[in-house]
């Protein structure tokens, strides 16, 4: 850690991991409700568990992005953060708002929560991923603006690098597109059309800039490859991301009432969307192969390479699988979608978050890398989580193919609930893989305690510190 104010990143990373645990626990609850329909009913209905699962996911990813920015922007700008106190204040506001919202989901019936929070004044609740009460959304906007101002000011006053510029463009886009969450007309087609401006233009647009910038930063630091080379790659990757991804939004406009020409625009452009993810994989491996130094933090390099590969699999391969209109006609809104959603979110955004945490946390704790023992635990957790997520994806894909066949691609289509019963075996297997994922997460958290312990008793710690 070169600048004192980078330390504000630490609480963000810790809160992110805590919310990650909550996310996975509720994922497991839902996984069980898929096969034991009345599990925890009516105390925690499926929809409540789902809100907690997806909203904690989004909040912890945002926490990680903010922590990443607070960590890397001072280092790139070569100066202290403009207002460290503001970053700390915003952390608490964000954490408390998120905590209260989750408590609201769990302990107040959703319609009561809507009433309590004055949803009628500006109705924005009750849409997938945007379930938060309107006042929580306003809170998110305030936190995002304060965060952006803080980061932008730091960049403006200091050294301007491509990494921090791309990060800043991504973060600005994140804030701007979130504003469409406040547009909720009665007209269902318009509602859905602009809902995707938040969801799609985030994950297949501006978030890819954030992903690219963080990946580039970690690769510069861990490989020592010339910044010029890395920055050129970064530009190419994000250029392809936006060139394909913006019009690629059309792959959500096939069946929601928009004109049929979107089947062409959406299919063609979104079929090209795997390109930036493919480039990212080539990029990461190339840079690591051409490395000029051997960074003692081996785990961070593994997370970085893992991000590139898994993002390509989840977004690129599993996205392509169902993105062409004639195929999407059958797969739209099935377990195929869920399979893709899981691997893409995990591969791209969960893993990039864990990458920057892995790289920065030891430095925030005053050491270049953790003890070898801790790193080995971390690498185990990587493999446990990544492999179990691949299996979750494969089981959901199998369930999805059967679902499509029995319910949609059939002379004698069967009812939804009947079909769900028939594919239950795969949901059981998914739950099993989910338990392995949880074990991976426990090992991950254990690695932090191992690192702290080894740092206190250096005799036990192995060569990691020595090779630094």
């Amino acid at each position: 850690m070169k600048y004192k104010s980078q330390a504000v990143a630490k609480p963000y990373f810790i809160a992110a991991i805590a919310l990650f645990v909550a996310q996975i626990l509720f994922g497991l609850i839902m996984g069980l409700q898929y096969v034991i329909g009345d599990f925890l009913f009516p105390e925690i209905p499926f929809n409540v568990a789902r809100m907690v699962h997806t909203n904690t996911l989004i909040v912890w990813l945002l926490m990680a992005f903010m922590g990443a920015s607070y960590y890397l922007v001072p280092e790139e700008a070569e100066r202290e953060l403009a207002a460290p106190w503001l970053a700390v204040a915003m952390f608490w506001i964000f954490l408390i708002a998120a905590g209260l919202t989750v408590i609201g989901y769990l302990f107040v019936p959703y319609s009561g929560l809507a009433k309590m929070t004055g949803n009628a004044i500006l109705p924005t609740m009750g849409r997938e991923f945007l379930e938060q009460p309107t006042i929580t959304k306003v809170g998110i906007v305030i936190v995002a603006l304060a965060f952006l101002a803080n980061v932008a000011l730091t960049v403006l006053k200091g050294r301007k690098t491509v990494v921090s510029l791309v990060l800043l463009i991504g973060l600005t886009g994140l804030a701007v597109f979130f504003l469409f969450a406040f547009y909720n007309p009665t007209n269902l087609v318009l509602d859905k059309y602009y809902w995707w401006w938040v969801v799609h233009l985030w994950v297949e647009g501006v978030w890819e800039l954030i992903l690219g910038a963080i990946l580039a930063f970690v690769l510069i630091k861990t490989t020592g490859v010339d910044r010029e080379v890395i920055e050129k790659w970064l530009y190419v990757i994000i250029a392809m991301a936006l060139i394909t991804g913006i019009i690629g939004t059309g792959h959500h406009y096939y069946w929601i009432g928009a004109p049929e020409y979107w089947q062409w625009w959406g299919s063609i452009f979104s079929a090209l969307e795997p390109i930036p993810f493919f480039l990212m994989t080539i990029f990461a491996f190339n840079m690591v192969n051409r490395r000029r130094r051997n960074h003692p933090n081996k785990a961070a390099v593994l997370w970085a390479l893992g991000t590139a590969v898994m993002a390509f699999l989840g977004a690129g391969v599993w996205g392509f699988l169902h993105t062409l209109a004639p195929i999407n006609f059958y797969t739209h809104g099935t377990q195929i979608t869920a399979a893709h959603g899981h691997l893409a979110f995990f591969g791209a955004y969960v893993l990039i978050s864990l990458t920057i945490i892995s790289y920065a946390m030891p430095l925030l704790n005053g050491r270049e890398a953790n003890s070898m023992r801790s790193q080995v635990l971390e690498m185990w957790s990587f493999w446990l989580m990544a492999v179990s997520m691949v299996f979750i994806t494969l089981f959901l894909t199998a369930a999805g193919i059967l679902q499509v066949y029995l319910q949609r691609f059939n002379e004698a289509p069967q009812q939804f609930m009947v079909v769900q019963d028939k594919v239950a075996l795969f949901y059981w297997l998914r739950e099993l893989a989910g338990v392995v994922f949880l074990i991976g997460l426990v090992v991950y958290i254990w690695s932090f305690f191992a690192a702290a312990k080894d740092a206190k008793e250096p005799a036990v710690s192995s060569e990691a510190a020595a090779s630094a």
Partner: protein
Amino acid sequence: MPQTFTKSMARNIFYGGSLFFLLLFLALTFDTSRALPERDRRDQLDTASEVGQKIAHGKMLWETNNCIGCHSLLGEGAYFAPELGNVYVRFGNSKDAIKAFIRSRPAEGIAGRRSMPQFNFSDEELDAIAEFLKYSSEINTAGWPPNIQG
């Protein structure tokens, strides 16, 4: 990447390409908004009419009870319970059948089966929800879903 391809070329492709396709996207969006009145049944949404008021109320109830947390609507949402974009058709073009179904959910759920909550809606609220689902089923979705089962 070859040396002849410079960083500033890459940067220009990023800014130029992004801007171009953003503008193209906005143009397509503009064209879409002109085509939508033919497809999205906005004629029904006039809040001066009784049906229009019901649909607006129905959509709000749909949202404030988070139906999307279990169901999909036009294929978007959750995959735990049946698609509802075409439930009006699946239930024999009957609002009453939809209302009866929602009204009859047992508060404690159905043992071992995926369960839907009992929302204790009033008759008027049920009517609004059913009207909203009827409206959803009449949107021109380019022939989706493939069949009545959603």
